């Protein structure tokens, strides 16, 4: 058997728990051959569950042990891991939760919370940069095409229907949960790395829309020009909001 064939067959046995006949081995200690394979098989969901638990800590508290574990194990069975980095696992958990409408009345809220926690984790692993402290008002007398601004690299903007960021890091506060559940509306937020962790900043829907276009790959100037058209008030408003909320790294004016 070639090394490739060995690994292909072993992987299949690992996934199915059967098809051990291809291998002639001595199991460890007093284990039966199938039990020896189970030692490896059981480690896989356990590690992925641990990774999901670290990322979705608040969701775990909101759902409770039993429901969270059941959802995780189902998600793991549907989403094999492909990255060497366990922290990368679980990106689609938010989308997955949206499909659980029949089981969970609050599936949108749960999905929002998962989306928030995923982006929070991503932001936590981003580099810290000092934000622009003060924006000169002189900048607003410049034509749009002369204004260049740079966003903080860690910046993430996400649409939320529930203010789930208010649940983050709290433990078993039923009253807070009920308040959040009763506040369905538009709650766009941004996340940026702070020196000691992650800063959550509520933003306007207009700014969310603008940042979403930016994240899709548009160049800043092109985006600003097309988004604001000739509306200088909108330009001032967007840049001011970005600066006021400390989401900008720098702003420069080219002659």
């Amino acid at each position, binding site marked *: 058997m070639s090394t490739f064939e060995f690994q292909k067959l072993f992987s299949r046995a690992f996934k199915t728990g059967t098809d051990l006949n291809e291998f002639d081995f001595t199991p460890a200690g007093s284990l039966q051959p199938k039990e020896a394979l189970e030692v490896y098989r059981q*480690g*896989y969901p356990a590690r992925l569950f641990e990774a999901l638990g670290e990322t979705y800590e608040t969701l775990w508290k909101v759902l409770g042990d039993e429901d969270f574990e059941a959802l995780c194990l189902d998600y793991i069975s549907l989403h094999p891991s492909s990255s060497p980095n366990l922290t990368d696992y679980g990106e689609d958990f938010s989308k997955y939760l949206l499909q659980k409408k029949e089981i969970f009345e609050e599936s949108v809220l749960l999905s929002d919370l998962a989306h928030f926690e995923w982006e929070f984790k991503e932001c*936590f692993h981003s580099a810290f940069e000092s934000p622009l402290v003060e924006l000169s008002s002189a900048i607003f007398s410049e034509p749009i095409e002369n204004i260049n601004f740079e966003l903080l690299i860690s910046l993430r903007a996400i649409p939320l229907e529930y203010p789930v960021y208010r649940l983050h890091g709290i433990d078993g506060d039923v009253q807070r949960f009920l308040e959040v559940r009763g506040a369905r509306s538009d709650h766009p937020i941004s996340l940026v790395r702070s020196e000691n962790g992650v800063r959550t900043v509520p933003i306007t829907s207009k700014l969310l829309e603008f940042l979403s276009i930016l994240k899709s790959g548009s160049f800043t100037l092109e985006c600003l020009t097309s988004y604001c058209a000739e509306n200088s008030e909108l330009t001032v408003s967007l840049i001011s909001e970005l600066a006021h909320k400390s989401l900008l790294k720098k702003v420069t004016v080219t002659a």
Partner: protein
Amino acid sequence: MSLSARVGVGLRPTHYSKILEVWPKEVDHFEVISENYMFSQGRPLETLLKIREHYPIFAHGVSMSVMSAVGPSDDYLKALKSFYNLIKPEITSDHLCWTGHAHDNLHDLLPFPFTNEFLDLAVRNISKVQDVLGRSMAFENLSAYMAFKNSDFTEWEFLKEVCLRSGAKLLFDLNNAWVNAVNFGYDPLLCVNSIPKKIVAQIHLGGPTDTGKFLFDTHSTKIPDEVWGILHQTAARFHDIPIIIEWDSDIPEFDVLLGEVKKARSIIESEFIKAGEANVHF
């Protein structure tokens, strides 16, 4: 010959605040899990960079999959090289194992038969890895829960051959050597005494769990007496090989790890002195 025992611990986030507060003098170096930092630019990496200013760092990986039939991923090696360039670790290592097949990462340190085919694969993949990374690597012997009957070599023969043919070093985990000896019923010193010092770059000590049916490498307990016994047996020979104490589950207070560090150092020192009195040459 002078004594230069060097003992450190695996760096885990739960101990960050304690380490940054006291900068423990008992610890000679820290070992980090490469994957916990190499994909991040955030807080964990910032903390590591602070600790790096005070201690040598060893970078230990779990996902290289050097025994993969298709070889380690180029993207993974690229990210690892960047991480090494940033941290400048004193020793860089991973495990002599495979961790997945095709697109699936199984997130485990998987066993394989010690055959000539796998030996050739090891030498080929390690040569590529060392070329790409531009440095020598150390690879750790595994704890295994199945031993394949079609092996051409014993585990220790295989480890020795891999190192001698590839130029890589062995990260010799004495706990794993003991676990395998118990699980497959042989004397651990058969393995330990067969490993030449010249191939050993580093030593791991840790504590497994006795499930009643087999020993499970959990790194969740104090180092058992049997593993301390192996260190006693090998201390004089390996006295200048750096040691890392590993503890990954049910992680205790940092002071408990310091107790294990002191014990390891004390064993190395006492055995080294004894050997000197007996006029043993290394």
